[in-house]
């Protein structure tokens, strides 16, 4: 079934009887060509592109809970291609280009909205770094503009230009950055994959891998054994827990990142703003809620919830930047488990076990990567060679000294 405005009108006039399930709920088959562990954004996108780009449709996505329940369902919805390093930026640029045509591609309105991202700078050194980054973005085919204070003021006159502890000296504007309705991404990919024959199996948890003679033959699950030619782990947040079952230790720690939404407001912020002198970034959803976040809670956690000090730290940043928010209320907070990697960059790679593949380590940036992650992971699974924009995302890069460290923080996951 194709979605369209006409279809909506037709259904409205006929009692909405024609809408079908957005995805089926099949029982698992005995085996598949590819079993993807994890029904989050990346897993569903991988299944979609395996089917669409590579014609591989004998695929199962197995999800321990409900699809889209991981970080794709608990993030701050930002998309961007504003990375600095050569190992990263081409990948994120591919991702942004995929976002730009995504809705027409999978026939689902995920509300991709490129209203711009503004990274504020507060010192000369930050401006130098912004210039280097902006140039790297442009050289990689992305877009960037360097604004001075007046340029920022023209966009957002209500920021604190009067008594700021760290005055705004300008900003790096990335106009193609923006936001996407996060849940819809999971549902859109699920629908697209399902229509192409992929089995999405919810409430099915992987309990182990069947590995014989260095070859992965399938997965043990709460719904029984499922055989596979290739098993693709895609469970960011739970990567260590799942891969431990295959005997692997990863260069990853799991951390909690909190995010927040305010009560609904008439338009305040058009685009996304990140505060360069505190831990605060913010956008406004189409429903009117300010969606904002800041820093990690800093300690290892699988609890999907955080603590009060970080809430205060984030909102202190918010008030420092936008004093007019004093009477606005925070409505809800939540927490996601981040796969924090040792250099802040992800992995899309084969493992030492034949037929077992790994995708993870997305830190707090997995959402924007969803299309390219699926695209490149599908490429790797289908061809056994890394996609050209994902050649650096290797598990052995630390052994080789080829870190991709955007923030320059070294092997300290919670600082990335």
């Amino acid at each position, binding site marked *: 079934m194709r979605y369209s405005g006409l279809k*909506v009108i037709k259904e409205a006039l006929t009692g909405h009887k024609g809408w079908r399930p957005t995805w089926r709920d099949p029982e698992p088959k005995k085996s598949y060509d590819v079993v993807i562990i994890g029904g989050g954004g990346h897993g569903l996108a991988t299944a979609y592109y395996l089917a669409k780009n590579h014609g591989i449709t004998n695929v199962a996505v197995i999800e321990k809970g409900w699809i889209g329940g991981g970080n794709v369902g608990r993030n701050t919805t930002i998309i961007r291609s504003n990375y600095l390093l050569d190992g990263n930026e081409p990948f994120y640029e591919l991702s942004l280009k995929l976002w730009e045509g995504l*809705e027409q591609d999978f026939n689902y309105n995920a509300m991709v909205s490129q209203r711009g991202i503004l990274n504020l700078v507060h010192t000369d050194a930050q401006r130098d770094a912004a210039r280097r*980054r902006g*140039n790297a973005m442009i050289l990689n085919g992305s877009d960037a503009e360097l604004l001075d204070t007046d340029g920022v003021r023209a966009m957002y006159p209500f920021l604190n230009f009067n008594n700021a502890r760290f005055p705004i000296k300008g900003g790096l504007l990335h106009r193609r950055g923006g936001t996407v309705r996060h849940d819809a991404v999971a549902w859109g990919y699920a629908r697209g994959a399902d229509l192409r024959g992929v089995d999405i199996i919810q409430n099915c948890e992987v309990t182990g891998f069947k590995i014989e003679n260095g070859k992965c033959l399938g997965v043990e699950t709460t719904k029984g054994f499922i055989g596979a030619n290739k098993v693709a782990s895609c469970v960011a947040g739970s990567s260590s827990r799942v891969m431990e079952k295959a005997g692997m230790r990863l260069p990853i720690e799991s951390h909690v990142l909190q995010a927040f939404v305010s009560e609904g407001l008439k338009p305040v912020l058009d685009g996304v703003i990140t505060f360069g002198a505190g831990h605060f970034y913010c956008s406004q959803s189409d429903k009117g809620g300010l969606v904002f976040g800041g820093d990690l809670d800093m300690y290892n956690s699988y609890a999907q919830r955080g603590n009060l000090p970080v809430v205060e730290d984030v909102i202190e*940043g918010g008030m420092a930047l936008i004093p*007019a928010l*004093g009477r606005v209320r925070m*409505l809800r907070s939540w927490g996601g488990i981040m796969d924090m990697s040792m250099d802040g960059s992800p992995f899309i790679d084969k493992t030492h076990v034949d037929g077992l593949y790994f995708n993870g380590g997305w830190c707090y940036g997995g959402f924007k990567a969803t299309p390219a992650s699926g695209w490149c992971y599908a490429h790797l699974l289908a061809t056994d060679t890394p996609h050209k924009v994902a050649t650096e995302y290797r598990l052995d890069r630390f052994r080789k*000294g080829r870190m991709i*460290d955007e923030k320059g923080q070294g092997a300290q996951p919670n600082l990335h």
Partner: protein
Amino acid sequence: MTDTVMNAGMNAGTVAFQADGSTGARKGVQVNRLDGGLIKGSKALNFTFDGKRYKGFEGDTLASALLANGVRLMGRSFKYHRPRGPLTSGSEEPNALVELRSGGRQEPNTRATVAELYDGLEANSQNRWPSLQHDFMAINDRFSNFLTAGFYYKTFMWPAAFWEKLYEPIIRKAAGLGSISFEDDPDAYDKGFLHCDLLVIGAGPTGLMAALTAGRAGAQVIIADEDFLLGGRLNAETFGIGDLTGAAWVEQAQAELASMPNVRVMPRTSIIGAYDHGIYGAVERTADHVLAPEAGKPRQILWRIYSKRAMLAAGATERPIAFENNDRPGVMLAGAVRAYANRWAVTPDQTVAVFTNNDDGHRTAADLIAKGVKVTAVIDTRAEAPKVEGAELFAGAQVIDTKGRLGLEVARLRLANGATRDVPCGALAVSGGWNPNVHLTCHQRGRPAWREDIAAFVPAGDLPQNMSVAGAANGDFSTAAALRAGAEGAVAALSELGIEAKADALPEAEDAPINVTPFWYVKEGKGRAWLDQQNDVTVKDVKLAHQENFRSVEHLKRYTTLGMATDQGKTSNMGGLAIMAELAGKQIPEVGTTMFRPPYTPVSFGVMAGRSVGEEFRPTRKTPSHKWAEEQGAEFVEVGQWLRAQWFPKKGETHWRQSVDREVLQTRNSVGICDVTTLGKIDVQGKDAAAFLNKMYANAFAKLPVGKVRYGLMLREDGIAYDDGTAARFAEDHFVVTTTTANAVLVYRNMEFARQCLFPDMDVQLISTTEAWAQFAVAGPNARKLLQKVVDPEFDISNEAFPFMACGEVTVAGGCRARLFRISFSGELAYEIAVPTRYGDAMIRKLMEAGEEFDAVPYGTEALGVMRIEKGHAAGNELNGTTSALNLGMGRMVSKKKDCIGNTLSEREGMNQENALKLVGFKPVNAAEPVQAGAHLMNADGEVSAATDQGYITSAAYSPVLGCSIGIGFLKSGDSRKGEVIRAVNPLEGKEVQVEVVSAHFVDPEGERLRG
């Protein structure tokens, strides 16, 4: 969070409460005002709503005062812009949201049901245009059949560009609820910290009894309630406790609590979240009930409460029944109607009907009848409904529709016999049963359990650490059970702390069982029956979600937006779950619940930020010469938390470059002085001090002579350069090391890690002395001459006696002790001289005075930066966390003969490639062109692209010595490319400059000056 008491005995007819004003006079004032209540009828308050003037009384909320004045219409819904009035009388309110106050104090989405009335209150309706009565956007309601759950996911996709250009802007404008003024909030906020043995959350009968029990035992007790009156549901009911009325009992309890110094009673305080290990967040509204806070006083306070034990006594929330057009102003929860009548002496209308599935709803009828309000019908879904006196009872009947424009006029019933009946009523009091307020028990991911006998979720065993639950929050709804649970819960909690408390003889109170027959929605009718009134989620939407396979509760919530409004579904979630369960053929507990998360009720940004706003967002660190620099008219710059002088403009200088050029030239030509106190200083002592520094730094320190300083490069364990500084050896077992300003705290932390965790038996003691010494760089050919005037003559600081890289203790200005270091960042003959910080202000004055004959200049961070770039010294822009010693041209400094942090991993292949980036200098081929930091480097010819990128410029400045702009940066194989002309491209700003690769040491490359 008010405690709820249910199923009181029907002692109707006793008007429990006496107002302090004259009763008879009220009716004339406000059309729906009754007698009695807990308001102060003697004190009339003026307020406006949408510009119209009204009067209410002290003790009113905005909602009760508007209802008293005959105003039911208070808001519009989010999507369909349906007219709405209050559904509740508490913080769970979905409908009656207003913009309170104006200007910088304008507060959108304020629940009229909890906004305390004050004289001069100003409120306006929101999300409507042009007026609340005539809202243009109500046209959405006509098209509701097209605007079903998730319709937007299926359309607005073509043409692709139209989403951002057309559809989305319209949607964004229409969406949202209230608006902000964009003015800065003028009010202050505060934070604080409290400690207690027992935190009691909710001050209804359960909480009050718990606090009394614990307080009498001498425990440290905090009892908090979001309401401005203690008592919870006791204020809304007509029955008594013991011989007293409910209100009198509350007053007595409150008086006793107030007399105990170990008890802190906190009304107007919402517990917003249960955090780890007994920490609770609480927001106290100290000035929301007055026109404006007193000067210097906060509007709200965020308290962090450290509790050893906590008791949740937060009561329960009534839930509605869904039926067609159940959202008209006037359709309210039965308990709320009762609360308005009993507490606020208000009836929403003069004719009221009641619709219930339980006994509790009948009490609303009885209480209203006793107050003289006409009850036109009591509709009970149960065939075996109890009898009603004074109103017509329809047992086994349902409300199937309502009518009325901008407010309820008629309820249409389906009677047990199948007939329909229209009942006139301006208000319909609906009760579908009560849900315990389990929210805080779920903040640490606990999941509630279903209790069949009350058809509701109650807290399960997985409570937050050291929390217990009692009373209605635990599903024990009667007053007697509440009092018992409060007392016994307090005894149990305190006994775990070794405090003995006694559950004294409890007063008598009603103890009736609950009789509820679950009834979630009326199945009859083709129209819409609302579940989530604010977000306009109807029964049909839940059915559509089920049809489209959004069946998990989380999918249901996210697809329909059920429970995502400002009330977080407090009155709507249960209904949605029950309907989903029915459609899926499951039991309610199988469907589960969504996760309750903090905050319990929405919290202002202002209070979460507290005093950390504006210039006080973070502390400011000032250098010892700050005051003097201010006197000189210096420009200041933020360097971390420090404020440093950036440059010192002189009269006639109109551009900062003039000042900076002058400062550089004057320093290089004569002498300049700069406050360098901000560099971190760590005092390292102990027998193993040298061995310790050998571990910390890549280069060796063991053989550094006493009285000498050495440059040190510090690596991270991954081999990347981390920080640099100097180490001065004052004795065999005593060093003072410096760090960069930015890394002072981190280096000190890492050293402690090494000392305690890696080398625990080394004899090393560390302490920061950054702030203890005011340190000034004195640089330039005349530096020594200047210092010789300041350093006391008994100290020989000649080149022979005090050569480059010497250090020692001296006195200055006739006996003030000081430390002198002969080190140079500028490349000139230079010293750093340190005196105890209290003398720093005098010292800068002394130095400037002594320098007068040399035309000494103070220089700021800009000139400092120019001179270090001229010398090719790495700073923060070069030590950017991705560069190694090899990149910095200091590869040979990394000793291979010893173990140090980072040397092993610095040898990995990826960090030692042939074409590795190397730090070099750049000069423009055309001296008039600027070199810019952040430009990327490209070969002289060929494509400009990421693939051909050769490196980047890290730092750049105009060099007044060379008369052109210069830069340093990292270039692939840079050290072997000197003399090559390449391009520095800056497409970001549309610039491209031809630069020559040169040594990074632009000035005095041999270092003759600094040794002179």
